[in-house]
């Protein structure tokens, strides 16, 4: 039986690289990132936008990749956890999470890193409350969020100091 493949060709910039991939019209970005591009850092915790583990940036906008059709990113720029550290240098959020032990099992961590990066680009000086509300869409079951928030606020401070210097 020869059924035609119902695939679309999509061109997008993924982590700074011009990329092309094939996807079904109904495939979500999270699935395509993981299965077609083998970028397994974006995790799927629920597939319905309730947990934030699949957080990515599309045109610098924080979204859940499970609620974006892969076809939508035609001509757009996508950044995943794999693209956060630049040239092997960790983003301050990544570094501070390590220093503060802001991860235990680590499954929520990629989503938290992406979301926190977006937070600090939007607001370089968030209060504790602002950080908590921004990150409310990133569920963590291990840490109780304490060390995550401390790490994010510490990263924010470091970034402000570097910018001022």
């Amino acid at each position: 039986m020869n059924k035609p493949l119902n695939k679309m060709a999509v061109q997008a910039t993924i982590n700074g690289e011009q990329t092309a991939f094939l996807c079904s019209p109904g495939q979500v970005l999270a699935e395509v990132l993981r299965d077609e591009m083998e970028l397994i850092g974006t995790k799927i915790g629920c597939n319905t936008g309730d947990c934030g583990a699949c957080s990515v940036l599309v045109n610098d906008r924080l979204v859940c990749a499970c609620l974006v059709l892969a076809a939508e990113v035609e001509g757009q720029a996508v950044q995943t956890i794999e693209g956060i550290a630049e040239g092997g240098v960790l983003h301050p959020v990544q570094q501070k999470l390590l220093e503060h032990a802001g991860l235990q099992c680590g499954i929520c961590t990629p989503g938290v890193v992406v979301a926190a990066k977006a937070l600090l680009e939007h607001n370089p000086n968030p209060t504790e409350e602002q950080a908590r509300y921004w990150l409310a869409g990133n569920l963590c079951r291990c840490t109780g969020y304490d060390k995550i928030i401390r790490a994010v606020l510490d990263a924010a401070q470091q970034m402000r100091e570097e910018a001022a210097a």
Partner: protein
Amino acid sequence: MSIQEFVAPHSLSEAKGLLSDGAIASVLAGGTDLLVGVRLGTRSPERVVDLKQIPELTAIHVDSESVQIGAAASAFSILHNSDVPSCFPGLAEALDLIGSTQIQGRCSAGGNLCNASPAADSIPALIANGAQCLITGPAGDHQMSVEDFVVGPSKNALKEGELLVALILPRPSPQTADAYLRLTPRTEMDIAVAGVGVSLTLDGNGTCTAARVSIGAVAPTALLVEAAGAALVGTQLEATAIEAAVAASREAACPISDKRGTAEYRTHVVGVLVARAVAQAQARIVEASS
């Protein structure tokens, strides 16, 4: 998935054509309801029509007469890249309460409205502000109020081939402010158990000259409670006036009991929220004029 075709038209006429050629089609704005529905099996379009490449659908325009919000504009862009929050802080509060930052990066006021969940956060705030729906279809363009647009749980007034283009909110008159409050068990990430949108206008003496009270999640659709607004007009928003508005709102509410709350609780809380939202709108007016 059922989706067989994805198209991203660049014009309204192209979009309309794609919605009226017989295909089982669904429009896509943020996808935060549609794609969840597809995942859970409650939505099964064959064709998805992405609206986000059509300028009218994402434009946000503020002028002296009105505020026009493209139906597919994301909550995030409305909140952070437009003047809508300064005109309608209550509507902004409502949009800021939908889902998470990630959801707001995608979800749209138009989509939230068209999805017509009884608990949708944007709808009471839109109703309170007298928002109108700009609809286009095979028979041309027309407008209707938001409260008329939602006709039942998950049912809107769009006919075959019609499309919600934008929401139009008249610029509020001076000494007017809105507010939106909702009750959820957690601080975020929950569907509203009860929601209230309020818009008040006061005169120079603090007398209320106009009031719109809308309640959500306590009936099959969000409701404009005219009796609650009437109870406030002509008063100084003193305790008895507020109590009357609260009573009228509770009277209008006809909630169900479900996994998110009992009917008794919802009726009780919607009244609490009406009182608080009125106080918040009043405080906004007072602060703006001081």
